[in-house]
């Protein structure tokens, strides 16, 4: 790599001046001449048969252009919304899903009709006037109840509610448990979470019959996949569909999969011959945007008295909601990652996907890895508790230390140094000091606890061999195109997309350094299927740098190779005699003979090129990673629980992570800090609650769905170690989900540690004051 100072530099985010001065361009900032507005009529019931829909009163309102139902949409849309194999390829029951309910609604919020009007207020008024007659049907919202015999059916024509039921066997579990000297068991809940991106979803579509062109603007983490799905459903050639995803105000996984509105809005535009826009309200967002987590684990771990871990047996009951999320089975990766950073003789993990009358679940920041980590780290702490060992010592005793490390399910961890991050985290957090202070606090009757989380994740999706099957045919490689323009400015097109990650900055740093041009010369472009390579694979699963960044890197190398040949031609030297430093080719031993790469770029558009060389200086590259990447780290949380109110105060939070080489440390810190915040939110605050009997959503506003603010969150102490990944030339891993994967276990382990003197060994999330007070009451009896 060229030696400049950009990679590893704390470059200020280039996108921020635009975003923080209100010049970002989100879906609602886009308009078109003649724009119309769509509102969705949604089911108020978790399960009901539709007996009739009367749109007459709505149609009678001046300015209302149409009231459309499934019958209308069947004329322009076909097929069922996509479901990928992901980590549960053996599905038992996959209900068909048309974007709008036909005869039966299966969750509260499912679309029943849409209204299109000349303004948004009118559309909302008219939606209120659509009369839908329902016959309510029995509903079930609890996944364990839904999987039991005799449960109400989520779909009245379904065989049962079981989406999948399969077991991952990693070693001889019976043999491992037969040697057990100690066994601990636990039941661990992963409550449903609402992603609550700051920008809710939104779609604007314009269908033109002239040449049958469809333009679609939507807030998406992967516009190319949306183009593939929508073009298929509408029967329009993929090449005639353009999907533009401008600035995206957060996603956290909730803007990966296609949604009903992604089909209904363009279909309405085709039916009406007018551009149509729909913007999701916050209440619609909590009710109908995918939820994350929603799992119940039962687990038992076996060990020897000396702390040697033997076996882990678990069952994951995954609350699918009323339909499979497109990537819903991805969350079964909790099973594959349940062994964490430890050596186990055997792990047996059963995953059961269960349909319920609720909005579908799908990947949410971390997706399966926070759940796997939380489970593993809770079980290890339970074991330490049972053995009377310091949880740090038990962890150290069982760490994987030889890399590449192959886990029980055959996944190969590329590189790691788990002792390094743990040692640093214990030092930075003053672990021993806190243990002493904890002893003093306990004597004074105060409930102080210290929790650890030593985590590893699988990310950088992913190698074509592993992912082509998991998506149902499209491997998750990544593409990039880099093009020098004659003036020397560089357009870099990537198939990833940013929704807060700062790719404008980091990817430009990477390109500028690799090509030896000033940062200002690089223009990073993404989010528009009409630009760049044929297909981009999107941003999720902490993949953008290790896959997309590598595609940029390999495209840069192709450009450098061509530029070298052209520079040699211009300097009348042989390519092997050129050196490339600081953005210029010089002839070895003759520094006067020099061409900057920008001069070479200009020359590439001129005449007199070498024999056989085409004009221009550009390259398209696809990067197919040889393996996933495996970031890791160690987090330490210290809490105090108010023994009277159950309120949890975080006294100290420390995270030491390792994501390999780093392009921009400031952005890495921001990602870790945000991830920790989101995971503390799960540990202590957030929970989507449905009424068990009525199936009604009880947390439909931000008043009841408790997203914490900066006032409730600690400023974590952060540090890093650097263990480069051997699987890519940049030595990078991923960091977007790390904090979310690590923190919930550290917080809950700390809460459990605080409550241990009361005989409390486990606490579910969110560890709300009310819940802790009840546990303390029960323990005191």
């Amino acid at each position: 790599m060229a030696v400049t100072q950009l990679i590893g530099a704390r470059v200020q985010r280039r996108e921020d001046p635009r975003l923080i001065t209100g010049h970002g361009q989100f879906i609602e900032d886009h308009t078109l001449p003649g724009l119309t507005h769509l509102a969705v009529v949604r089911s108020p019931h978790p399960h009901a048969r539709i007996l009739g829909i009367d749109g007459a009163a709505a149609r009678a309102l001046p300015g209302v252009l149409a009231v459309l139902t499934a019958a209308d949409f069947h004329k322009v849309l076909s097929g069922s919304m996509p479901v990928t194999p992901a980590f549960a390829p053996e599905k038992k029951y996959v209900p068909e899903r048309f974007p709008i309910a036909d005869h039966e609604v299966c969750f509260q919020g499912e679309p029943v009709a849409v209204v299109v009007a000349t303004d948004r207020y009118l559309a909302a008024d008219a939606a209120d006037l659509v009369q839908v007659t329902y016959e309510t049907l029995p509903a079930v919202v609890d996944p364990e109840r839904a999987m039991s015999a005799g449960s109400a059916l989520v779909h009245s024509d379904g065989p049962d509610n079981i989406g999948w039921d399969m077991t991952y066997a990693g070693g001889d579990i019976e043999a491992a448990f037969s040697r057990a000297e100690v066994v601990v068991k636990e039941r661990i809940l992963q409550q449903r979470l609402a992603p609550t991106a700051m920008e809710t979803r939104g779609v604007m579509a314009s269908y033109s019959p002239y040449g049958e062109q469809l333009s679609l603007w939507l807030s998406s983490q992967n516009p190319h996949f949306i183009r593939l799905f929508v073009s298929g459903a509408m029967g329009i050639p993929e090449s005639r569909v353009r999907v533009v995803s401008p600035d995206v105000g957060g996603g956290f996984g909730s803007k990966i999969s296609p949604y009903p509105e992604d089909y209904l809005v363009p279909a309405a535009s085709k039916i009406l011959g007018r551009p149509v826009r729909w913007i999701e309200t916050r209440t619609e967002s909590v009710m109908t945007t995918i939820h994350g987590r929603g799992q119940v684990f039962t687990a038992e771990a076996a060990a020897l008295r000396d702390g040697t871990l033997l076996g882990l047996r678990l069952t994951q009951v995954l609350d699918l909601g009323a339909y499979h999320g497109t990537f819903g089975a991805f969350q079964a990766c909790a099973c594959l990652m349940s062994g964490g950073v430890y050596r186990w003789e055997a792990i047996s993990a059963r995953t059961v996907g269960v349909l319920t009358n609720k909005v579908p679940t799908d990947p949410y920041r971390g997706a399966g890895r926070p759940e796997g980590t939380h489970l593993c780290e809770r079980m290890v702490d339970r074991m330490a508790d049972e053995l009377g060992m310091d949880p740090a010592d038990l962890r150290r005793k069982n760490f994987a230390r030889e890399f590449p490390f192959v886990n029980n399910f055959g996944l190969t961890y590329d590189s790691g140094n788990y002792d390094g991050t743990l040692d640093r985290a214990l030092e930075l957090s003053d672990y021993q000091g806190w243990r002493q202070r904890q002893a003093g606090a306990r004597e004074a009757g105060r409930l102080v606890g210290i929790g650890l989380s030593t985590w590893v994740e699988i990310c950088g999706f992913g190698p074509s061999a592993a992912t082509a099957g998991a998506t149902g045919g499209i491997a998750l490689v990544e593409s990039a195109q880099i093009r020098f323009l004659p003036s020397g400015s560089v357009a870099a097109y990537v198939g990833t997309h940013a929704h807060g990650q700062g790719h404008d900055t980091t990817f430009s740093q990477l390109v500028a350094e690799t090509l030896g041009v000033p940062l200002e010369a690089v223009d990073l472009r993404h989010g528009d299927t009409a630009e760049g390579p044929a297909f981009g694979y999107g941003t999720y699963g902490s993949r953008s740098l290790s896959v997309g960044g590598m595609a940029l890197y390999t495209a840069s190398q192709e450009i450098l190779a061509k530029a070298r040949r052209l520079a040699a031609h211009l300097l009348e030297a042989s390519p092997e005699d050129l050196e490339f430093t600081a953005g210029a080719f010089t002839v070895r031993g003759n520094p006067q003979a020099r061409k900057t790469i920008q001069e070479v770029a200009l020359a590439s558009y001129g005449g007199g090129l070498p024999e056989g060389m085409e004009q221009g200086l550009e390259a398209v590259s696809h990067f197919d990673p040889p393996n996933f990447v495996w970031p890791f780290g160690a987090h330490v949380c210290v809490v105090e629980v108010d023994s009277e109110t159950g309120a949890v105060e975080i006294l100290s939070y420390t995270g030491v992570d390792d994501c390999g080489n780093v392009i921009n440390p400031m952005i890495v810190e921001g990602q870790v800090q945000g991830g920790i915040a989101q995971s503390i939110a799960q540990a202590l605050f957030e929970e989507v609650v449905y009424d068990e009997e009525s199936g009604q959503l009880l947390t439909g506003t931000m008043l009841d769905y408790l997203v914490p603010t900066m006032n409730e969150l600690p400023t974590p102490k952060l540090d890093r170690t650097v263990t480069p990944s051997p699987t890519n030339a940049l030595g990078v891993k991923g960091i977007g989900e790390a904090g979310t994967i690590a923190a919930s276990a550290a917080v809950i382990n700390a809460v459990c540690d605080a409550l241990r003197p009361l005989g409390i060994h486990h606490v579910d999330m969110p560890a709300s004051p009310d819940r802790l007070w009840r546990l303390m009451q029960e323990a005191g009896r």
Partner: protein
Amino acid sequence: MIPAAFQYSKAGSVKEAVAQLREAGPEAKVIAGGQSLIPLLRLRLSQPSHLVDVNGVRELDYIHPEGDLLRVGAMTRHTTMARSELVQRHLPLLAEMAAQVGDPQIRARGTLGGVIAHADAAGDYPTLAVMLDATIVTDRRRVAARDFFQHLFTTVLAEDELVCEVVFPVAPGPHRYLKFRRRLYDWAIVGAAVQKLDSGWRVGLTHVGPSAVRAAAVEARLQAGATFQEAAAAAADGLEPPSDVRASADYRRHLARVLTRRALEQAA
């Protein structure tokens, strides 16, 4: 925000506001700071036919000490009360409460009269008004606070009646208001206010029932010489608090006792 359609008019005086309300009829609503009303409009839970905006009624934005009384105009914003030297001197508990309402943006907009007229179970000022025997002054009458609040979101106000002022007793003595909440900007799950007067302690509770509660049993025990602990044990007597996703009724009763004791300890 996509509220249902409504008419809108701006009033410049109490007289104008009342006239506009009368003309607009029974489905009209007053909008002051809008910090409670706007979310209800947004969710279409409230669909008034007409909003009378009283933000221009400057005559109701004042803080007047008058002998043993502190008169505060209905359009006085939370921030104004929190920062007011007069309030801090004559009724510091009001300043303390005002400083704990919502976030800075809410405090800059929300008003004393708005909170009183809205009568949310989690509103803070009704607790103060009830425990201190304040008087609510409207455009046409004076009502004792204990008679003013009838139920959740329900007061004695007529459809065209406007809250103009709250008259509090001056009380510079020991005091404390503790709000238990999950997030700094949230409503109280439970709140406990205590104020020492020459005649003894006054104790009020927020969000433990449909309306603000004066904890008379606690006051009586204190009067009889009970310790704070003993007195606070009576804080939940007779309460029927709500159960919701935030907290169970039992937990709210427990909080009422804990917060009352802590408030007394911290005030003393």
